[in-house]
Each structure stands twice: as C-alpha cells, then as structure tokens.
C-alpha cells in the first residue's frame, strides 16, 4: 500500500480533522460560557465592564447574547453534516430553523447593541457592528433563498453566516496562540479580533469560490 500524496493527506485532514477541531472548540466555548449563568460578577470579563453592568438593558443583552450564541454554535454544528442532511433531513431543518430564528431575533440585534460598548478603539467597535450586520444579512439571505428553493445559494449564504458565528471560536484560538507568544493583552485582543473576522470572511469566500464556477453569482442569488 503506497503512502498518500501530500495533497491527498491535506484533503484527509480537512475532511476528518478540521470538523473534529471545530466541534471541540465549539463545545469548549459553550462549556466556558456556562459559569456566566450563575450571574456572578467576579469574572474578569464583567469586572472590566463593571460600570456597563449597571445598565440593566446591557445586562439583559449580555446574558441573552451569550445564551443565543451558545444555541447558534451548537445548532450550526449539525448543519454541515452530509450524513444528517441525507438521512436526518428533519433534524437539519429544525436545527436550521432554531439557528436562523435565534440569530435574526436575538443574537444579531443584541450583538449590535453590545458592539457600541465593545472593548478596544472605535475601529474595533465598528468591526463588531459590521460583524453583527454581516451576520444578520447573510442569515436573512440564507432564509430567503431556502424559501425560494435556491439550495446552492442557500448553502453559500449560510456558510457566510456560519463564518461570522465562528468568529467567537476562532477569536479565542488566536487569542490563546498570541498569549503564548507573549503579546500584550490589548494588542493581542485587537489583532486576534481582526484576524478572526477578516480571516473567517476570507475562508468562507475561498470555499465558495473554489466550489462554484460562477463566484459573482453567489452574491446576486
């Protein structure tokens, strides 16, 4: 039996290892979010924003956003499985409905509200706003296209939507990586944020580009 070529090895890694990494970090993110639901104030994230947490609407938005985000990340894990799509179609449909509803009604609007108070400079706040806007728009387009039975366009828009949802995961991976490289906290935070958002957008567009003959059409359908 001959050894696999580098291209075949890379394809195997992407097919089997990447989903495992995504599942692991998604579950880790949700698991790390759970302690916040004790509603304690001693977490560093809250301590940094202790004055913001005196605004009741911000507190409501924060807890709603992290709960909705957890739902989104977990329900999205079921969406890209070819096995579930073929054998358990109703599971795909229902988890998709949950994802779309949660993003459009809860996660994106609360994310937009919280973006005004995000840590960092005005550029980082603008980035969070753009992220919320892209997440909302791509999810709405994903819903619209599936209602019009445009399955290919639905896949593309939902991939874009998922890339925005996954910024919460990739941001933490980069943040951890740069932390071990010894970067200062604020510098690490800003760079990780930009790389995670821009990187995820580029990754989604690259996948759409390589999987489709007419890339420009993916924006118009």
């Amino acid at each position, binding site marked *: 039996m001959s050894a696999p070529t580098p291209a075949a090895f890379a394809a195997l890694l992407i097919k089997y290892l990447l989903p495992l990494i995504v599942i692991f970090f998604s579950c880790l993110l949700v698991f790390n979010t759970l302690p916040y639901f004790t509603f304690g104030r001693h977490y560093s994230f809250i*301590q*940094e*924003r*202790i*004055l*913001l947490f005196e*605004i009741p*609407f*911000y507190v409501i938005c924060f807890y709603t956003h992290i709960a909705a985000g957890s739902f989104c990340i977990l329900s999205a894990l079921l969406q890209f499985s070819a096995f579930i799509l073929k054998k358990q179609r109703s599971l795909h449909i229902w988890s998709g409905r949950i994802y*779309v*509803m949660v993003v*459009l*009604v809860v996660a*994106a*609007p*609360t994310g*937009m*509200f*919280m*973006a*005004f*108070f*995000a*840590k*960092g*400079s*005005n550029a*980082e706040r603008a980035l969070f*706003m753009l992220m*919320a806007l892209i997440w*909302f728009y791509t999810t*709405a387009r994903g*819903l*619209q296209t599936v*209602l019009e039975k445009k399955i290919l366009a639905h896949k593309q828009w939902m991939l874009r939507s998922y890339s925005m949802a996954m910024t919460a995961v990739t941001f933490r991976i980069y943040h951890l990586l740069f932390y071990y490289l010894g970067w200062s906290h*604020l510098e690490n935070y800003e760079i990780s944020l930009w790389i995670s958002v821009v990187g995820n957008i580029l990754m989604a567009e690259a996948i759409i580009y390589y999987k489709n003959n007419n890339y420009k059409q993916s924006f118009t359908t």
Partner: protein
Amino acid sequence: MKSIITVSTLLFVTASFMGIGNYIRYNDELRAKGLYRNTKTDNSSQNTVHASGQSAMTAEVLPDLPDPQSDVSQQQPLSDAAADSTTASQADQSAVHSRQRKSKKRTENTVIQPAVRDIDLRGFSRAPLEDEPPVYNTDEAVQQNTPVIISDKEANE
C-alpha cells in the same frame, strides 16, 4: 417566514438606535464621574474600568510606586506615601520624592552595615542598630527642604 425577516430587521434597527442612545448617555455619565478616556490619545477603551471602579485615567494620577526589585523594607512606607499622595499637598509630594531619592541611598548603605544583627523572629522585626541613621521629623524636614530619613523600624511599622 418572510414576516420573520421584517420583524427581525425592525428589531435590529431598534437595537442599533438603542445602542447609539445608550452609548451617548453612558459616555455622558462617565464624563460626569470623571472617568471618560479620550480614545484619540489612548488606544484602550474608555469602557474598560478597573475593578475598583477607577478608569485607567484616574489610576494614572497616582505617582510611580517603588521598584519591586528594591529593598523590601523600603516598600511599605513608600506605598503608604503613594496612596496618601492623591490628596496630599505639593509639599508632601516633594517629601515623598525626597524619600524615594533617599531610599536608593539607604539601599546602598545597607551593604556596608554590619552583618551581625539581633533578630527577634517572633516579632519578625529587627532591633535598632547603633549605626542606624537618625530619625527626623517629616514636617520639619519638609520646611527645611531636607531629605527625610526614616529608620527600618519605622519602615516596618
């Protein structure tokens, strides 16, 4: 299903307006409390507040604390002085600086002090030495504009 998009769009727009409104009000409150930070001069967020409720801007008012690498016995009085100096007069601040300058000199002096010392382990304090430098009254030293010299015993207290 299309009504969901309409309703959620309205929600999203409402959230955006609420964000703008609350952001303006929040910054006004920060200004009123004196905690607002200019993002043009500092890259970090004005929303980031220390656990004590102070912004980094107010924290900057505090004078430099002593070098942690310096003699441990020197740190306590200087830290106390630093904490008090937020409300202290200019004269008191000059006394603090005099202490800082003097403390470096005293660190050097400790090298040439006799190694034999009577140590009380239970009280974790040192008995005064014969070659201990004289203790001056702080207020008097400020008036005379002379450096304040403090003993190790005072430092430990």
